[in-house]
């Protein structure tokens, strides 16, 4: 394989103390506008209004640090973090780490966004409501479904909302108690099982057949008059498109259940295939994945939830309507599940998704999907050539937006695990994520290139992967003891599962290690 130049990377290592270690009595980071003299004269200290037992006796043990030192501390921490803006972030498969355009950041920083209160009179937020309404209509076109709620605060919240709607639907038909099972698949996101279980459902998980696709015979055996619904991704984490998906939805519908499509990641199929054609009743898109809003170290986010016409009345309230002149909040959904998040959802995320779609348009969305798939299959071809790596299932077939690979052979031959390879990849400035549990694919890793990275960048990532695999055979100790060029060295995880030793806060750490401040 032709190898591209390997970067001589070293991550910033500031050896920065914990924030509490920076405290210096008397330092101040920020002064506020205190009450005017006249107020003080009229009211007194204000605190006297509190009954004695409600007064805080001792000031909170926060550190005292001057402003520039606080800034420097957090800037240094930021430098010890690899965002998608800095690395070739294709190694976090399923997460869709694409480019989040900077113009959208400029737009969301406008006071016209940041300084809006969610309870303002409708007449004063026509711009915000217009964006929400229009994004809803865009997503209807993209999915083929009839109405979206942009309220859920993430993909898992949207899954919980889907499970809630499924339950409310069966309740309306007097079948909620009887239909207490949700079916999902092992290569669907863990939350498809977990959020539905949180709604009180028993979970039936369909495993893969020899081709890596969810086994349709198992599905047939699983459905009954207890079936409430199906929650499934397609393509699943393997990146293999399930060509029998319409058969899945038909089997569920025939059994009286509803079908929810987890499209958290829809990046390979925009404009290619939709929830509607596969006959789903519900779907959701993560606006922080496919629709480019940045991931923010794990949110804030939006799981945009769509439904067919017959389920609109079940959506969380309010949705945004338009009467031809004005945008307004519509609470009139008689069977609404209520709410899944305060107010209307995360508006900056909604705005970024709106701007991203407007920049690309219909053909651009399809081009983004197509190139994401092109990039993925290009990588598939390259990874298969790496000694010790393989792409289980669907031999000789193409994949959609990602592939779940395996280091099984490499581990067998060298003893080096996926986790150790991930650590070594950090030395080249890259992430390599293993996979969701359980590890059905042995020693898994999942790569999803999206449309955002150039061929040269992809080649560089592959070269690093190739180099680390080579090292595993030739110099395993180097991989085992990695990372060498990252912020920290091999972490001792033994304390993290031990209640006597774990320390979730600095004060707990000081107590458990008998350290005096």
């Amino acid at each position: 394989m032709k190898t591209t130049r390997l970067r001589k990377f070293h991550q910033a290592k500031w050896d920065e103390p914990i924030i509490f270690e920076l405290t210096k009595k008397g330092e101040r980071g920020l002064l506020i506008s205190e009450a005017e003299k006249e107020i003080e004269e009229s009211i007194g200290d204000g605190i006297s209004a509190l009954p004695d037992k409600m007064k805080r006796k001792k000031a909170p043990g926060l550190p005292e640090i001057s402003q520039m030192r606080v800034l420097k501390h957090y800037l240094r921490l930021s430098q010890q973090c690899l965002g998608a803006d800095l690395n070739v972030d294709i190694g976090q498969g399923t997460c869709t780490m694409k480019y989040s355009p900077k113009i959208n950041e400029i737009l969301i920083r406008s006071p016209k966004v940041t300084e809006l209160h969610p309870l303002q009179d409708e007449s004063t937020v026509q711009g915000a409501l217009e964006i929400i309404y229009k994004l809803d209509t865009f997503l209807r076109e993209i999915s083929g479904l009839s109405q979206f709620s942009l309220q859920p605060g993430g993909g898992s919240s949207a899954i919980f909302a889907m499970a809630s709607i499924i339950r409310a639907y069966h309740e309306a038909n007097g079948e909620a108690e009887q239909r207490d099972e949700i079916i999902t698949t092992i290569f669907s996101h863990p939350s498809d099982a977990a959020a539905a279980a949180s709604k009180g459902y028993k979970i039936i998980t369909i495993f893969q057949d020899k081709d890596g696709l969810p086994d349709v015979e198992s599905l047939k055996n699983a459905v009954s008059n207890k079936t409430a619904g199906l929650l499934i991704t397609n393509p699943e984490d393997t990146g293999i498109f399930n060509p029998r998906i319409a058969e899945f939805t038909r089997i569920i519908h025939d059994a009286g259940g509803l079908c929810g499509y987890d499209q958290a990641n829809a990046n390979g199929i925009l404009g290619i295939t939709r929830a509607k054609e596969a006959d789903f009743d519900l779907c959701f898109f993560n606006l922080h994945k496919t629709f480019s809003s940045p991931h923010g170290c794990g949110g804030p986010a939006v799981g945009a939830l769509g439904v067919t016409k017959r389920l609109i009345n079940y959506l969380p309230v309010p949705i945004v309507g338009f009467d031809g002149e004005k945008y307004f909040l519509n609470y009139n959904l008689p069977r609404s599940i209520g709410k899944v998040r305060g107010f209307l959802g995360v508006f900056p995320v909604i705005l970024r998704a709106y701007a991203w779609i407007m920049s690309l348009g219909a053909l651009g969305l399809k081009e983004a999907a197509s190139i994401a798939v092109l990039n993925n299959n290009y990588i598939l071809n390259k990874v298969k050539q790496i000694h010790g790596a393989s792409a289980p299932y669907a031999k000789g077939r193409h994949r959609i937006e990602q592939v779940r690979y395996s280091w099984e052979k490499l581990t067998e031959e060298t003893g080096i695990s996926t986790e150790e390879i991930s650590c070594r990849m950090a030395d080249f400035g890259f992430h390599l994520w293993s996979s969701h549990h359980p590890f059905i694919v042995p020693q898994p890793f999942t790569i999803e290139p999206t449309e955002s990275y150039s061929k040269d960048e992809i080649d560089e990532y592959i070269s690093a992967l190739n180099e680390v695999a080579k090292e595993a055979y030739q110099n395993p100790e180097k991989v085992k003891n990695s990372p060498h060029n990252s912020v920290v060295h091999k972490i001792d995880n033994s304390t993290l599962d031990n209640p006597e030793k774990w320390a979730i806060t600095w004060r707990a750490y000081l107590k458990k290690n008998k350290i005096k401040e």
Partner: protein
Amino acid sequence: MNTKKGSAHPYIPNSAPEVKAKMLKEIGVNNIDELYSDIPETLKFKGNINLPKALPSEYALKRHVEEILSKNQTCEDNLSFLGGGCWQHYVPAICDEINQRSEFLTAYAGEPYEDHGRFQALFEYESLMAELLDMDVVNVPTYDWCQAASTSIRMACRITGRNEILLSDTVSPDRLLVINNYCRPIVNIKTLKHCPKTGAIDLNDLKSKISPRTAGIYFENPSYLGFLESQGNALSDIAHENGALSIVGVDPVSLGVIAPPSHYGADIVCGDIQGLGVHMNYGGGLAGFIATHDEEKFVMEYPSRLFGITKTAVKGEYGFGDVAYDRTSFGLREKGKEFIGTCSALWGITAGVYLSLMGPEGMQKLGKTIMQKSQYAMKKISEINGVKAPLFNAPHFKEFIVDFNDTKVPVKEINKSLLKHAIFGGKDLSDDFPELGSCALYCVTEIHTKKEIDSLVQVLSDVLNKTDIKKG
């Protein structure tokens, strides 16, 4: 695409024709359609997505979006007294500087090696909140207070093995909608009456309703209606005597001056961190926290990520990682505790920056200033003929009910008039709490000046004296 035929969109490098051709060749296919060969024709979308004309020019896009946004009127352009779950506080410049950093903004789920900074920043956030709350365990943020309260309730049920929760009927209606949906059909939610004079929970009602089925009592301080629930100790004692937990929602902004719930017996504490350095963002700034003591039976019931500090192979080096990862749904799917996914982590980092800047004295002064300014506002508003604030005879923090009943004017009309004077009046409570009649929930924080409060009072008094305002 609307760019010139053959030219690549700036967001999609490999749509450059030569690159695309090279890659296709290497894969061994003639065109991209072949890569979709697994998708049956019947499932393929034959049409074109019906979307407005694309604006690939960055300038055109900026103009377009700004034109829509210009239709918004903000709490900066106007004088706002809205609260009720989202609050206008001052956001220090450094909070935005940090949360806009590419490294934090575009990171996600990296390992503690390459994302050491993300782990440390969120560990520090947990630690700073722990000081404010005087508790030893705080989670990586969940979606918002609504979710934090819902999960706290579900945790209490798992910890006690019971399935009923008693909560104050003054909890925000929005929050109650989330809690009810999140608990149904697992947990029974029963409401407790409040004393019409003070707003406090009616202890007799509580005593008559608490039972061996009760997993916990949930109340808020300050309550949604602004008053403080001063019976914290009594409520926690009653819960504990009955084998139930005390769950308290709290505004962390108040904790420089007001005793944290752990001081009056709370077992699980939750709330929202939006007030700690995050812009309102039309409600998008919300993020929830949950705190407990460091006991295994509590820690093991969190669904959230909990970042812990540990050692590395190098002496003196701090490392970080997930504490008890296997309790989560990432570890165990449906057998994990509730579920976990992307929530509101960036706002956690931001709140950490805020608390680092404020320090102990800053939080004390903030709390004191808010109490002074809100008390001043109540005093001045009460001087208006027929208007009374607060409604409840209790200490308040930053929000309070203004009672307009004696003016016979509905809040809706008052707010309409205020809006003409560029004032966003307090939230109209008449739909959610019809028994209160014409009442509004006002919020006064450290950002309100005396002049602004005086101007509210002046305008209010003017509009109420105007003859044309509709009487209810």
